[in-house]
C-alpha cells in the first residue's frame, strides 16, 4: 500500500505481545516503512547495534527490560535524530510522565488507536522537527 511521496524510514517496533507486534509490523510495512521488531528492551538494544531507525515504537510494560529502562540506557540525548513513540495502555500514569521526561516524542494509548491512526501518528512524528536534546 506504499504510495509515491510516502516517507521512507526505518522503524523499530518494541512490543512484548506477539500478536500486536505482528499487527504493527504488517500495518507499517504496508505504508512502505522498513520495520524490525523486538519483544523487550534488551532485544531492542541488541537490534540497535546494526539497525538505525528514525522512529521507535515502544511499549512500557515488558519482561526482561521495560520501556523506561530502555529509554534510560538508549539515552535520547545522544540520539537526537531518533523519535520514540510510547505505545502503552497505562494512560495518565507516572510511567508516561517519566517517559516524557526521558525524551519520548508522544504517547499513544494502544487500545484506543485504530491502525489508520497509528500510521497517521507515525507519519506526523517523522515529519515533525527533531526534538531538542
Amino acid at each position, binding site marked *: 500500500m506504499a504510495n509515491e511521496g510516502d516517507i521512507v524510514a526505518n522503524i523499530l517496533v518494541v512490543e512484548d*505481545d506477539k*500478536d500486536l507486534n505482528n499487527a*504493527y509490523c504488517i500495518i507499517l510495512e504496508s505504508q512502505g516503512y522498513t520495520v524490525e521488531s523486538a519483544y523487550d528492551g534488551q532485544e531492542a538494544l541488541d537490534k540497535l547495534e546494526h539497525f538505525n531507525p528514525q522512529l521507535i515504537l515502544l511499549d512500557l510494560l515488558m519482561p526482561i527490560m521495560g520501556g523506561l529502562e530502555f529509554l534510560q540506557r538508549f539515552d535520547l540525548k545522544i540520539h537526537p535524530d531518533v523519535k520514540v513513540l510510547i505505545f502503552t*495502555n497505562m494512560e*495518565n500514569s507516572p510511567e508516561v510522565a517519566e517517559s516524557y521526561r526521558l525524551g519520548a516524542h508522544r504517547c499513544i494509548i*494502544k487500545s484506543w488507536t485504530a491502525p*489508520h491512526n497509528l500510521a497517521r501518528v507515525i507519519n506526523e512524528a517523522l515529519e515533525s522537527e527533531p526534538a531538542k536534546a
Partner: protein
Amino acid sequence: MADILPASIQHAQEQRAQAEALFNSIGEGAIATDEFGRITRINPIALGMLGYKERELLGEWFPKKIVALTDQDTPVNLIDRPITKAFLTGKSATEKMFYRKKDGTVLPVIITVSPILLADRPIGAIEVFRDITLEEEVDRMKSEFISLASHQLRTPLSAIKTYSHMLVDGYMGEVTPAQKKSLRTIITATNRMNELISTLLNITRIESGTINIVPKTLKIERACEEVIKELSLAAADKEISMTLSQKGRGTTTVKTDNLILKEIISNLVSNAIKYTNEGGAIRIEVQGRPRDVLVAIHDNGWGIPKASHDQVFSKFFRAQNTVKRETTGTGLGLYLVKGLLERLNGEIWFESAEGKGTSFYFTLPKERRNTAARAASSQK
C-alpha cells in the same frame, strides 16, 4: 457537713480513678489536654505509637510537640488541626493526617478530638487516634492490583481491536459488507470494554491520589466542542440534537487539565444521551462568572426520581428508572465525575424532575488555589 465532705472526696477520687483506668484502657492512642492545649495525660498506646516517654510530653503544648503533617509532608496549619477545631466549635472533629514520631518517621493516623465542656465552655480536650498504616497499605495494594489488572485486560483487547480494524480496512483482503458490519460490532464492543477499564483506572487513581494533573490555560467551550464532536455519532443514532451556547460575556478561560475536563464533560454528555429518548435535545451552556466558569448540561430525558437524588454521586448507584430501560451503565460515571472535579477544585450539583429532564451544573475556579489550600481541601 463533716460527714458529707469525706464521702464526696472519696466519690471524686473514685471517679478520677475510674476515668484514669478508662483512659489507659482505650485500645487506641489517647491524649488529654487542658483548656490551653497543654498535655495533661497520655495513655501507654499513644506513647508507644509516638515513641515518647510520658515525662517528655506532660505539660507540653500539644500542637507544637506533636507535629501533624498533610499528605504532602508539609505541617498542617494550626487552624486545621482537629484540636483547634474542637476548641473553636465546641464539637468533636475527625481528620486523617500524619504524626511525626520522636525518631522523625511519620505515622498515618485517623484522629478524633472531643472537647471537654463545662457549662458550654471547653476546659480541655481528649484526642483519640488510630494507626492506619495497615489500611493505607491494603488500599495501595488494591489500587495497584486494579491498575495492573486493567492494564492486563487491555492488552488482549488491543489485539482484538487492531485485528478487527485491519480486517475492515482490507489488510487481509476484501471483506463483504455483512462481514464488515459484524466486525464493526466487535469494534464497538471493544470500545465499550475500554471505556469501562478507563473508568475503573481513573477511579483507582482518584482513590489512591495518584491522578496526574497537567494545568493548561484553555477555554472551556473548546473542550465542550471537542466532546460534542466525539459524541455526535452516538447522539445521531438516537436523533438527539446537541447545542452549545455561551451565556453572558464573561471570559470562560480557566487554567486546568484538558484531559480531565474532557473526561468530566464527556461523562455528563454521554449520560444525557443515554438517558434521553430518541429525538430529544441536549443543551450545553457555558458562562464565565467573576470567580469561576459555570457549565450547564441540560437534557429533556427521563430525569432522576426524587427518592434517588441524594445517592446520585455514590459509587455503583443507578437510578431505578434507568436500570429497567438502559443496561450499559456501570454506576461509576458520576462518582468518577465528582472525584475528578474535586481534584480540579470544582463543584457539581444537579436539578432533575422525573419525566421532564435533568440539568447538571459544574464550576471550575478561574484561579487555582495554592498547594496548601488544595492539600487542606483534599483532606476533607
